[in-house]
């Protein structure tokens, strides 16, 4: 074995050298912007959609001869796990050549990562996490958010469901801060509309088997099961509901509004599931069509999914700030804090004193024939199809 070693070593060296060819040098200065999201794991469809959208914004800006800098995307995968998220956040924030970040879909990750961003002074715009505490829990000047919070989502959801005539709920939520947040805000909103929660069940975010919880829920016999959590759990719960013969309606949050939910369950089982998402659907956004066309032209392997437009808007806001204030973290942060009525693909963006953008509209979606359809456009609204009881 000893005499093979030199050959192996030479081969390895050649390989290493071949793989590390220098990148092209540009005439303009290169500015790095980080993108953090779940690129693998159960929410990867949304994460990849966000990354592609941010990449689209970057490419468009680089193709524009008037931009002062060349932008480079540093995409990091947080796997939707808080500890990995903190690690990649540290990596991005500690790297002085990264000027800003478009960060986080998973709330559980974001709530822990904001401390890191603050510690290293990295200005970030959150593109998909909905937990209110991310912006409202502290006064870090580095943290901003373009999408709405779950407070709004759950208010609209409670109102909608009450209007549909439902009275009894069972709540299943995952035990991360995301699920707990949904539980808290939905319960509050529901009380105001007179709904009754028969039982609340916390489950682990990677739990496989829900027979214990669902068997108890079957005993309680609610009309609706509210699920505060993400797509992989949503798929399992819906499928096991069917297995146990539970006929209640499944009401989800923005966490299950993804194509992966429907493809994971199949059209039949997914049929009739409800979800809520802030912002208007892509077609109805002010610049939605242009975004959609440009996205198609780039030929990305995954669709932008629910939060793609938000990531796109966030990336553009950051690049606008860098063009104005230069590649300096403190200056970019100061400029972002001043954002007022900025025109983006999702509409006008203003950051309040906590860096939060107010998104007025929350859309209701229902899964119909294998697609998420806006409630108003669906056959459920017209009464042709009925939700479950």
């Amino acid at each position, binding site marked *: *074995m000893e005499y093979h*070693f*030199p050959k192996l*070593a*030479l081969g*390895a*060296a050649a390989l*290493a*050298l071949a*793989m*590390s*060819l*220098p*990148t092209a040098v540009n005439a303009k200065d290169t500015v790095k912007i980080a993108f953090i999201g779940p690129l693998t794991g159960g929410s990867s469809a949304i994460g990849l959609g966000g990354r592609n959208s941010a990449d689209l914004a970057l490419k468009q800006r680089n193709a524009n001869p008037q931009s002062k800098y060349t932008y480079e995307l540093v995409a990091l995968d947080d796997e939707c*796990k*808080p*500890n*990995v998220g*903190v*690690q990649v956040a*540290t*990596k991005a924030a*500690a*790297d*002085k050549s990264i000027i800003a970040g478009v960060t986080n879909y998973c709330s*559980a990750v974001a*709530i*822990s990562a904001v*401390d*890191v961003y603050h*510690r*290293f002074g990295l200005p970030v715009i959150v593109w998909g996490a909905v937990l209110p505490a991310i912006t409202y829990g502290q006064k870090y000047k580095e943290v901003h958010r373009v999408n709405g919070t779950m407070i709004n989502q759950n208010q609209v959801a409670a109102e909608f469901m009450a209007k549909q005539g439902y009275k009894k709920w069972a709540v299943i939520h995952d*035990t*991360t*801060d995301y699920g707990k947040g949904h539980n808290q805000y939905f319960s509050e909103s529901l009380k105001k509309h007179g709904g009754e929660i028969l039982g609340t069940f916390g489950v*682990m*975010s990677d739990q496989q088997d829900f027979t214990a919880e669902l068997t108890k829920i079957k005993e309680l016999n609610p009309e609706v099961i509210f699920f505060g959590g993400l797509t992989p759990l949503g798929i399992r719960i819906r499928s096991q509901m069917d297995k146990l013969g539970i006929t209640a309606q499944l009401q989800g949050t923005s966490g299950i509004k993804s194509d992966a939910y429907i493809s994971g369950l199949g059209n039949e089982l997914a049929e009739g599931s409800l979800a809520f998402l802030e912002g208007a659907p892509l077609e109805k956004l002010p610049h939605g069509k242009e975004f959609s066309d440009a996205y198609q032209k780039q030929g990305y392997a995954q669709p932008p999914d629910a939060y793609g437009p938000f990531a796109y808007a966030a990336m553009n806001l950051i690049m606008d700030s860098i063009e104005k204030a230069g590649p300096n973290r403190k200056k970019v942060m100061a400029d972002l804090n001043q954002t007022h009525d900025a025109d983006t693909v999702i509409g006008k963006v203003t950051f309040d004193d906590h860096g939060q953008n107010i998104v007025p509209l929350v859309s209701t979606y229902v899964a119909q024939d294998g697609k998420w359809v806006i409630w108003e456009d669906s056959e459920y609204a017209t009464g042709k199809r009925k939700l479950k009881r």
Partner: protein
Amino acid sequence: MLHTLKPSRSLLWAAMVVAFAIAWGVLHAESEFEVGITLVAIVVVVLAARWLRVAPAVGASMNDHPRSLGWACILGVLLLTAAFYDDHFALLLLCTVLLYSVAGFGLNIQFGYCGILNFAGAAFFGIGSYTAAVLTTHTGTPHLLVLVVGGLVSALLGSMLILPVLRTRGHYAALVTIAFGILFKTFLEVNDTLGGPQGMRIPNMNILGWQLNEDIVIGDLDISFYANYAVLSLVLCVIAFILVRRLERSWIGVSMDMVRTDEIAASVFGVPIARMKIIAFTAGNFLVGVAGAVYGLLTSYVAPNNFTFSDSLILVSMVILGGIGNPWGILPAAAIILILPEKLQFIQEYRFLLYGILIIAILLFRPDGLLPRSIRNFFPGQSRT
């Protein structure tokens, strides 16, 4: 001429300078091009050493002058810290390598000396971190004491496993620690008092008033706060290393080796097997716990997902890769396992796969690891060249 190279102090220092240069290169390399060049440099050095037959002489020099080697290493790490004084990430990597090495020393006592398999290394690491989190958040315990308490709690919880570990052999013993590791992680995730899956934030560390989480500003120089931790980790690493070496050379160390080699023969000679195992297991967990406490303070965050079974397997891989029973091997092994995936982005995703294949290859072809443990030297000062 080179064939008759005699082992000497100067040869040792020369070798250490080369090692320092390589370490600096690895930590400094940013783009993949630079990383490639550094790797090529390493390969060239290793090949040259082999071809010029310098390696045995260098090895003998290291054996003969362990104290010089120790000082050279300490000096090297301090110089590295100074070289990267404002590079957050490089210092973070350095600290991580040092802390995981301390944990590796702990596992080495259990496994390399006494033959106890511990597949819950990451769990004990986590116990240290969580202890640090709870103590610093809720009590006013001085932070240096927190480190010690972290180790003690880790050792204490490990002693819950003592009875099954003592009574079982081989595979059954492995199962006990594996089950404990999973139990620990699941318990933390399910239980909300310690933060549940979200984990806990750990406040800043300060020792006697010196804030470790703030950058040190001296005039124009802005030294990264990680430098504080680098020095702390270095001190910890040195202490742990000295402890481990002393243990190995002591009567207890010899007894542990006997227990590992052949329990029945050892008991025939009157070696108190249970006591040796308890000492090894507890001392090992103590070291791992202290390392975990510092790591928690370093990252200001702890979550159950940091301490999965795969992480325990990584700790075990580190000990095997370095050479079972040889604490010197753990440092380069830790460096390889921790730094390489960070620097080579394209293997970052595949790193678990590569570790697994690497260890399988090692087990099949070179089970002694990188720096195999030399035969016990009963008469120090005389090396066999």
